């Protein structure tokens, strides 16, 4: 079956086709929504399909990959169109499909230039899927940058506040990093070519390159910089609150839930395996910025009055755990980091969604405008609370499991870093309960006309809440998927 249907190519190009089709029918808003929904559902179904194959091994694929596709592309440079799926990418692909579906649903109310909006959303999805699947470094880079344009427009055209400033800031930040990464990629390619006389960008090949220590350090630094910006890690984050705040809800969802994961994925899949020594050497640095980030962002989040900005800082703060887990680079820690990526995507995504709904209703993100919603819109408040508690790491919900795994995994390697990082969860709770309290509790400061969730909204949130709970009580299947690929990745 795998040989008959090019599932991986379909996974990448189905959204792109959807994007074109959506754009083609842009005259009718209903048609646009229908097409977008149909394609994102189809993508979700398609991304569930490979899970049945996990455990098998595809012909010609590197170890751990159960779906694989390879074709010549730009022969002059040995660039190939190589897609492969292992457990990690399977989960990421599924996550992408899921989040995009939610994003499509959340953007139901977009009125202005609806066609273009959904078209960009699907294009973005295609790029992200491609990134999670590509095994050729050049292809990876291509998708890495291709994500930028749809995102740029999503923020800039439909954003609020200072969208142009934010979007260009976002773009420039990520662009600077990724161009330096390009230099590193080329250098690596040339070194590998000089050593083996086979010029290729294939990741499994490049991993075997013998890199001198000091050069490796520079190259790794370039990769790290690029990923750290997208992550974002501590001093490179200032694009992030602006972009998150000013983006439309669906955009924030994609940005916060998926794009930051691409960076973590890049670190796990590319940077660390490629430069084992250099990454060891720079690990203390990553620990420091991760730990600093967890605490610092949580602390700043507390000072925010703008809910979205608070969530933006909260999002970076949580991503610090991912960085921590990756830096530890032990099987347990990395599997925790991967799970945390999934959990963060869903929890943060859901939080942005609920805040977006609130904003839609009362046209304000200012915390002090709200209060006492529990009595007025109980259903909304219920979900609001659930997702906030998930974010605060209440056990039984998803984030707890991954944070625990990260803690346990990291503690073995770097007890101090892990311990300090977990002190940060106190700060997390501080701003979370503040958010909950200011919105749900107390009395209304100003009478607001609030309507409770519509069936569409309730459905979205219910599904997300179910996932939150499911991953909190039974993350086993997901963790199992990570096992084989991590064994391969960490064997080196």
């Amino acid at each position: 079956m795998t040989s008959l249907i090019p599932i991986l190519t379909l996974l990448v190009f189905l959204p792109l086709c959807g994007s074109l089709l959506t754009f083609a029918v842009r005259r009718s808003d209903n048609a646009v929504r229908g097409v977008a929904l149909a394609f994102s559902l189809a993508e979700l179904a398609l991304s569930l399909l490979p899970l049945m194959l996990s455990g098998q091994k595809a012909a010609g694929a590197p170890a751990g990959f159960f779906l694989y596709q390879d074709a010549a592309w730009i022969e002059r440079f040995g660039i190939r169109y190589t897609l492969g799926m292992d457990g990690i990418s399977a989960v990421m692909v599924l996550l992408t499909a899921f989040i995009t579906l939610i994003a499509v649903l959340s953007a139901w109310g977009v009125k202005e230039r609806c066609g273009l909006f959904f078209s960009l959303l699907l294009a973005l999805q295609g790029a992200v899927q491609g990134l999670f699947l590509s095994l050729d470094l050049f292809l990876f880079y291509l998708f890495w940058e291709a994500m930028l344009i749809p995102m740029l427009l999503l923020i800039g055209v439909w954003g609020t506040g200072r969208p142009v400033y934010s979007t260009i800031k976002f773009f420039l930040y990520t662009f600077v990093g990724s161009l330096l990464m390009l230099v590193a990629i080329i250098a690596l390619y040339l070194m590998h070519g000089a050593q083996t006389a086979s010029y290729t960008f294939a990741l499994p090949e490049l991993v075997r390159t013998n890199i001198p220590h000091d050069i490796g350090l520079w190259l790794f630094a370039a990769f790290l910089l690029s990923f750290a910006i997208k992550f974002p890690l501590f001093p490179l984050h200032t694009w992030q609150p602006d972009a998150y705040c000013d983006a439309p809800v669906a955009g924030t969802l994609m940005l916060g839930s998926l794009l930051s994961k691409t960076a973590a994925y890049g670190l796990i899949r590319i940077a660390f395996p490629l430069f084992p020594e250099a990454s060891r050497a720079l690990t203390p640095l990553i620990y420091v910025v991760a730990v600093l980030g967890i605490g610092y962002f949580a602390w700043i989040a507390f000072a925010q009055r703008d809910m979205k900005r608070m969530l933006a800082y909260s999002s970076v703060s949580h991503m610090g755990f991912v960085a921590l887990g990756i830096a530890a680079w032990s099987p347990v820690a990395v599997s925790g980091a991967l799970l945390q990526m999934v959990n963060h995507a869903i929890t943060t995504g859901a939080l942005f969604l609920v805040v977006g709904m609130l904003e839609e209703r009362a046209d304000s993100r200012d915390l002090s405008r709200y209060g006492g919603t529990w009595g007025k819109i109980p259903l909304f408040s219920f979900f609001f609370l659930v997702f906030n508690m998930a974010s605060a790491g209440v056990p039984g919900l998803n984030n707890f499991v991954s944070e625990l795994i990260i803690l346990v995994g990291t503690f073995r390697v770097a007890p101090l870093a892990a311990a300090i990082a977990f002190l940060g969860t106190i700060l997390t709770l501080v701003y979370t309960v503040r958010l909950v309290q200011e919105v749900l509790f107390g009395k209304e400061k100003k009478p607001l006309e609030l309507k409770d969730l519509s069936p569409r909204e309730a459905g979205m949130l219910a599904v997300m809440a179910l996932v939150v709970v499911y991953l909190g009580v039974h993350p086993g299947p997901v963790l199992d998927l990570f096992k084989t690929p991590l064994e391969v990745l960490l064997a080196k």
Partner: protein
Amino acid sequence: MTISDLYTIMPIVITAGAALFVLLCGPMLLSASLTAIGVTASAAAGLWAALGTPASTQAVSGLCFTPLARFLIPVFCFAAAVTLLLSHSYNERRGIKGEEFPATVLFALFALCVLPCATNMLILFLALESVSFAFYILVSMDLNRAESGEAGLKYLLMGAVAAAFTAFGFALLFTGSGTLQLSGALARPDNRAIISAGWGVILVGMAFKLSLVPGHLWTPDVYQGAPAPVSAFLSTSSKVAAAALLLILLALFPPMPELRVPLAALSVLSMVLGNLAALLQQNIKRMLAYSSVAHMGYLSLALLSGSRDGYAAVLLYGAVYTAMNLAAFGAISSLSIDEERELVTDYAGLGFTAPLRGGVLALAMISLAGIPPTAGFIGKFFIFYSAIKGGSIALAIIGILSAAASAYFYLRVVAQLYMHRSQAPAPRAVSLAEGLALCLASAMILVIGVYPGPLLKAIDTALQ
């Protein structure tokens, strides 16, 4: 000289014939048909060149249809055809009448076709000067705008001085090596100093042509003053021609290590200055001019590597840059109303009120910024690849960083197009010719961006 020899240089014959024909029969024909003749002729020449087989020996004494010509002539013809397509309605709006415009474009194309075919320096030089010459005329063609004439004067004065430098360089090369022929290794080791002086002087002349710092100062003025289609043509073909000249000469002489530093300095200065000066530039044409300075800086970075990869990168970048700038200036030309839309802010909201042209302009900007999946990315990748391979990693990093900064001003245009409300009335509808030209250019950007394989193969053949 036989008929078959003539066949091989047929593109040159076609373009020269078309230029003369247009000039002679111009007064009797409609301007639309003149444009049609011009486009047909350039398309024919381009196709002929693309499909013909390169010869190893001279067809006519002084001319030889080389593999390089086979690659470059279609590029030039493409640029000329697009320019002609664009210029028709532009000229009508501006009151640029007469057969002179298409004829001069064809003359420029003729000279451009001669350039890569030349087998000696004299023809090379003459071809290059003819190209400049045609552009002196084209730049000042718009008699209704004072800027056009002013730009023409500036270009002419600078160009003439540069031509003197170039000619002096050729003279020194000749004096040092004793031949004007472009075959075989020429330098006599004992005359190396003269040759290097000649090279230095030629480099200065080419710094003007490629608008490398400090010979770049004319660029913004001329791009601004010239009619937009002319800027499109000028910014692409004349640069590629100059780059090709350098390529031919570099291939001829053994590596000149002493040129490395000057070339590197030119390249770095251009990359940095071009990108910085464009950052806050309000006038879109001047912005593109500075961007062109920067892009030529990248191009000379590839030249610097002195390797086959570097030369291939130069050719690829030439082709890519042609497509990008044609699209950009094409959109600008097509969007201009009674007067040019000069300021970046004049483009507010046009992405939605004029979707095709706005889209093409945005695409061109994205490509110029070097973001995949556009041709600009492949071009930049190749440039920096060759630079790193050539060992100039520091330069590559400077270039990359300046390229990163450059994204700002390209995106500013995109932001204006899509993220600002338009106050101006909706622009007039796009004409068929313009639409065709824009679609051609953007198709090229996308195709090279996604599947550059065939083009790279063609370039490798061209460099044999």
